[in-house]
């Protein structure tokens, strides 16, 4: 091995001629590049901000390279190695940039294609040539030569590795060998994804925030969130693979999330710009408002105690306190709003404006209330001056009358009056009667002192002058005296009638004391009233000024002026702002944890954690109703559904909510008429309507009293869910905006049960005309879903309970051979202690069933819902005779209680069942003799009918679980009473998917039925003991076995 010793004179080992050539080339290139960059930097418009920074750095770097070139020119060997590394790296970077460009990336440095080619070629060839010259300059057989060659070869290999990977990234070959396709996109979702034509960005924002109490829980929650984020990201990668127009990003990191929020904020500003501007103006005025409130508060506190308004009502302190509260509220709101604006990446301007408006409105309402109260106070003195004489006279008369009555019997310490006791009592009775009347008159006169205005009277009643003690006003006190006199008179009258002379004589003596007390009370009241009336007429100057300012509309001085001049104008503006659209909810949606944000043009959609990771539901019949914390991945269906909603302008079909409405009887005011409604009114289906809309259906209502709305663009009115009514009180217009050839699906709601009332025509039920309209629509080609649920017994003609009937049975039985038994209630029980007996669990009123059948339709419609959280309250059976279905009808159960589920059956006596539950009677059993139905029980049916000359082929679904489609079940927690009190279960958000899937099947677009989560065979139950044994064997035993084997091997080796 020939290795020369070059360490003593390294400068002498380089080939002079070659190294000089490399140095000159380096200097030339460095100077050339620096001159070019200098020119670009001097031209202000040549480079953008970041480009200028890069140019400066590059300029400095080339300066260093130039200096090194000069060193090399001076014969310094170390300079050669530095330059070799520099040029090698430049050449390698140029090669990578070239490949990046060739594989579809942009032209390097943002140059034009021509310049790009020139620069890249130059950046590869020239550095490569200089490196080659520098390597050649090092003598053969030296360490430097070996090192140089190794360096070049290593860099070359790194470049080759990078290029190979770049090529493989540009042309990936992928094959999913996972048999169920759990981690990829379902074919249906893939179809929807591929239909996206506009560029779209989907970002995941999984923050793993947790409210867990302990560190362990927090760590577990974080790990769960990270695992779920990974799963979501995998799905998004699949989405991008399926359609490169859809960009996907993980915005869970701080930087990426900030970028996303900034982007969304920019868009949001376009929508809520007016709200934002107004909020800014209100915030600007709030500071001034706070100062004015403080000043007014101080001014009202300073009002003298003997002032009219303060002395009578303590009004100064009251207003000051109220202003202090308003100021506190204003200050708090101001702080909250400013904090939100400062901290939130996407402030909810609409909500903040509302919050601020309400706080300012509080101040405004204080101003209005003070003005009103002062006006009422101001009305009292003139009224008192006008009415005081009459009141004073009346009081004088009343006092005189009672005093005169006393003279008949004398004062308590006076001698007995002369004359017959009966005659004295008779005179006294007449006199106190007169006194009572006068006292009542006086009370009435005093009550009228404030005039007729009840508000002013009420203000007077609250004044100190009018309140003689804690409870009573002056008029009340006079009324009380009158009542005492009347009681005295009644007592005397009884004595006259029944008592003997001796008793009458005693009475004459006994009555003196109470009568004297009444006289004393009347006199004191008279003098108090005189003082009060006088006080009410004397208003001090300060109070007069307050009354005057109230009359001018500025009871709170500068604060009132500020409110009138500026704040009112701003608040008026807030009322004219457009109501926030659906996207007004965006900030609230974005503030949730763990979301997916879809940006499609100007539209933004947010998928919540609940959408993508819905919770599991406990299996039907399970003993425990406690919440299961496990969740499953539904991202495929949720994302595809969202994309479908975003990408389809034309609806697939229109869904008409067909309902009956009872007209107001003639002669009855519509305001007073409260007609019975069906158990599932259209207004209770808001969530379902929204889901149908998201699934690309248009939704409208059809009042069956009218002809079916036409599906055309007729000018005679249009009504769809966007602008149309929600409740049944708003009759549908005759036409919808949909295309005439759009398929129609009728969502037929149960009619109100017929009610028989004595002396009145029956209400509710279904008329032949209404039934005929639905029949005609289906015969003409519409599809239908009939919703039904168990109904309580109806009232018969004599008030007797009668089994309820499903109004649509007449049609279903005649045309389809199906029947819904709404008088039966399918309940779920738990096994009792006695064999064959069952107990009613706390959730007996709803079924937890998602085990859809295995038939052709059930497989399509129900399979995606298997294992989902589905609750069916008040379910009722759907029955049919499979062998005698009319006219080629074919029916198939969708959802069925299997024969093996003995703990579920249909109860005929639903009322009795509720009674049993209330009474806490423990064990029950099916009563077949009384009409109970045992499993198998069909709860939902799909049917088809071939067409003929008179009618089109039709598809139909009948759901005895229709009660599960209402908002109360879909969007509100399900409540139940457990041993530990009232508990709730998360809403059954997936229920409407059955209708959505059903609609797809009815219109023949099964390809849009989303796959839903895949059901994978789970790990079998393992007993706790077995689990512990396995843990010990695997975690401890296996490693020990390995160590033992190792020990054995080592021992054998030593011996052998």
């Amino acid at each position, binding site marked *: *091995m020939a*290795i020369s010793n070059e360490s003593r004179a390294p400068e002498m080992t380089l080939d002079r001629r070659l190294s000089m050539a490399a140095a000159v080339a380096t200097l030339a290139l460095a100077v050339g590049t620096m001159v070019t960059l200098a020119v670009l930097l001097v031209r202000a418009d040549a480079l953008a901000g970041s480009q200028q920074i890069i140019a400066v750095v590059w300029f400095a770097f080339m300066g260093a390279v130039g200096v090194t070139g000069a060193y090399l020119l001076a014969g310094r060997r170390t300079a050669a190695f530095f330059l070799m590394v520099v040029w090698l790296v430049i050449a390698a970077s140029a090669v990578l940039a070239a490949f990046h460009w060739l594989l579809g990336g942009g032209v390097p440095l943002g140059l034009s294609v021509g310049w790009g080619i020139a620069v890249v070629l130059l950046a590869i060839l020239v550095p490569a040539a200089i490196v080659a010259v520098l390597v050649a300059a090092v003598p053969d057989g030296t*360490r430097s030569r*070996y090192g140089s060659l*190794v360096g070049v*070869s*290593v860099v070359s*290999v*790194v470049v080759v*590795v990078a290029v*190979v*990977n770049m090529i*493989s*990234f540009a*042309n*990936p*070959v*992928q*094959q*999913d*060998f*996972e*048999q*169920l396709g*759990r*981690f*990829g996109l379902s074919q249906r979702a893939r179809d929807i994804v591929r239909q996206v034509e506009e560029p779209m960005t989907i970002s995941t924002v999984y923050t793993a925030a947790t409210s867990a109490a302990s560190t362990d*829980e927090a760590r*577990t929650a974080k*790990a*769960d969130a990270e*695992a779920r984020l990974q799963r979501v990201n*995998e799905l998004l990668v699949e989405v991008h693979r399926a359609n490169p127009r859809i960009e996907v990003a*993980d915005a869970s*990191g701080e*930087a*990426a999330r900030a970028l996303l929020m900034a982007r969304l904020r920019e868009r949001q500003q376009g929508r809520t710009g007016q709200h934002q501007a107004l909020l800014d103006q209100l915030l600007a005025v709030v500071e001034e408002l706070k100062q004015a409130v403080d000043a007014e508060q101080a001014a009202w506190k300073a009002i003298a105690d003997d002032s009219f308004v303060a002395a009578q009502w303590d009004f100064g302190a009251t207003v000051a306190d109220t202003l202090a509260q308003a100021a506190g509220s204003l200050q708090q709101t101001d702080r909250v709003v400013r904090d939100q604006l400062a901290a939130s990446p996407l402030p909810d301007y609409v909500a903040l404006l509302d919050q601020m408006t309400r706080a300012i409105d509080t101040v405004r309402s204080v101003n209005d209330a003070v003005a009103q109260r002062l006006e009422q106070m101001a009305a009292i003195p003139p009224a008192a001056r006008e009415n005081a004489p009459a009141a004073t006279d009346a009081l004088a008369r009343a006092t005189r009358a009672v005093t005169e009555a006393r003279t008949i019997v004398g004062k308590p310490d006076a001698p007995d009056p002369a004359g017959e006791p009966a005659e004295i009592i008779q005179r006294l009775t007449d006199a106190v009667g007169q006194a009572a009347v006068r006292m009542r008159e006086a009370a009435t006169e005093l009550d009228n002192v404030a005039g007729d205005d009840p508000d002013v009277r009420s203000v007077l009643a609250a004044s100190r002058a009018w309140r003689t003690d804690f409870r009573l006003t002056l008029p009340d006190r006079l009324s009380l005296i009158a009542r005492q006199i009347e009681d005295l008179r009644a007592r005397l009258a009884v004595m006259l009638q029944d008592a003997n002379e001796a008793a009458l004589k005693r009475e004459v003596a006994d009555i003196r004391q109470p009568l004297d007390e009444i006289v004393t009370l009347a006199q004191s009241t008279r003098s108090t009233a005189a003082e009060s009336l006088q006080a009410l007429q004397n208003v001090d100057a300060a109070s007069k000024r307050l009354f005057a300012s109230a009359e001018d509309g500025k009871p709170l001085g500068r604060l009132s002026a500020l409110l009138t001049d500026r704040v009112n104008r701003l608040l008026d503006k807030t009322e004219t702002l457009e109501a926030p659209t659906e996207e007004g909810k965006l900030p609230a949606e974005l503030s949730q944890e763990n979301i997916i944000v879809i940006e499609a043009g100007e539209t933004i959609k947010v998928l919540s954690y609940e959408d993508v990771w819905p919770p599991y539901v406990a299996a039907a019949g399970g003993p425990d109703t406690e919440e299961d914390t496990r969740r499953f991945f539904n991202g495929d269906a949720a994302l595809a559904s969202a994309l479908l909603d975003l990408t389809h302008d034309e609806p697939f079909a229109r869904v008409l909510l067909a309902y009956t409405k009872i007209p107001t009887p003639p002669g009855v005011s519509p305001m007073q008429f409260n007609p019975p409604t069906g158990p599932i009114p259209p207004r209770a289906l808001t969530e379902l309507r929204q889901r149908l809309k998201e699934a690309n259906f248009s939704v409208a209502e059809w009042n069956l009293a009218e002809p079916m709305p036409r599906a055309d663009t007729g000018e005679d009115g249009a009504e769809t869910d966007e602008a149309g009514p929600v409740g049944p009180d708003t009759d549908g217009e005759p036409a919808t905006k949909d295309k005439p050839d759009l398929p129609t699906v009728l969502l037929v709601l149960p009619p109100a049960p017929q009610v028989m009332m004595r002396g009145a025509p029956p209400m509710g039920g279904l008329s032949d005309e209404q039934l005929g309209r639905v029949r005609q629509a289906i015969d003409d080609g519409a599809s239908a879903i009939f919703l039904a649920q168990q109904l309580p017994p109806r009232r018969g003609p004599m008030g007797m309970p009668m089994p309820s009937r499903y109004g649509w049975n007449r049609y279903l039985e005649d045309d389809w051979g199906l029947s819904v038994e709404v008088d039966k209630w399918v309940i779920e029980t738990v096994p009792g202690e006695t064999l064959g007996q069952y107990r009613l669990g706390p959730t007996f009123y709803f079924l937890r069933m998602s085990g859809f059948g295995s038939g052709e339709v059930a497989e399509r419609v129900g399979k995606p819902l298997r294992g989902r959280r589905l609750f069916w309250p008040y379910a009722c059976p759907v029955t049919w005779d499979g062998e005698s279905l009319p006219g080629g009808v074919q029916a198939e159960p969708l959802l069925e209680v299997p024969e093996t589920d003995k703990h579920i059956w249909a109860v005929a006596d639903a009322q009795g069942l509720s009674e049993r539950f209330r009474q806490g009677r423990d064990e029950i059993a099916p009563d077949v003799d009384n009409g109970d139905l045992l499993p198998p029980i069909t709860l939902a049916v799909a049917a088809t009918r071939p067409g003929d000359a008179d009618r089109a082929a039709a598809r139909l679904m009948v759901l005895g679980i229709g009660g599960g489609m209402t908002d109360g079940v879909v969007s509100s927690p399900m409540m139940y009473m457990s041993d530990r009190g009232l508990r709730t279960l998360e809403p059954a958000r997936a229920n409407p998917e059955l209708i959505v899937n059903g609609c797809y099947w009815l219109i023949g677009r099964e390809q849009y039925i989303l796959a839903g989560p895949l059901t*994978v*065979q*789970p*790990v*079998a*139950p*393992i007993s706790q003991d077995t*689990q*512990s044994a*396995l*843990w*010990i064997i*695997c*975690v401890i035993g*296996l*490693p*020990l076995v*390995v*160590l033992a084997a*190792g*020990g054995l*091997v*080592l021992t054998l080796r030593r011996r052998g």
Partner: protein
Amino acid sequence: MGKIWTLARRELAGTFFSPLAWVVGALFLCACAFKFCPPPAFWSGSRDAFILVPHQQASLRGLFEMMGVAMVVAAPLLTMRLVAEEVRSGTVETLVTAPITDAQIILGKFAGVMGFYMALLASTVVFLVLMLIFATPDAGVVIMGYLGMLLLGAAFLAAGLFASTLTRYQLLAAVIGIGVVSLLGIFPGRLAPHLPAPLNQVAANLNAQAYLRDFARGMFDSRGLIYFLSLTAGFLFLSVKMLESKRWR
């Protein structure tokens, strides 16, 4: 090829006669078992992260991902002695003067340690058997998972071998190896969400665990294949060059 095979057998035997290899193997299995088996009843935390949990979806995916993480430490520990020990003990002189090329030496050593790694991987079949007893794991996931583990193991072992050529001290070689492997298997995944574009993309593309995850979910992805193979080839090349440098340094 014969020389490589001879050397590989010698290395494999050497590994089996090394106590450290058995300890590493035991620890690797222990880590996998910890992930696989749900802990006994006293464990109060969530059981979702474990694999053989009753009523949970049966999948070995989590096990493969755990193995991938464990290999960040295991691979450098297995390879640290391969060249460093030869250099320290002076036997490298004998080796480099023998009628065998540097590339053959490196390939032989690599094949030997790969043999031990494959035996280690084979021992994890016990988890597959347990899974087969209590559930029906997806065959695609199992096959692709083991393929991914082979590829990842090859890349990490090559990186560890390269680290072993850098120094004569085994411990230092292990530390360097863990650092290099972490740069491929740990840091990119952690850093990618926090880096600005396009660095986050570069980091994401460098993340070996991401490729393993694709394999572990039953997905064959040519990008992962190329990535692992090119990394393996690259590190083996570097190892050859490092060994070669011992001749002329």
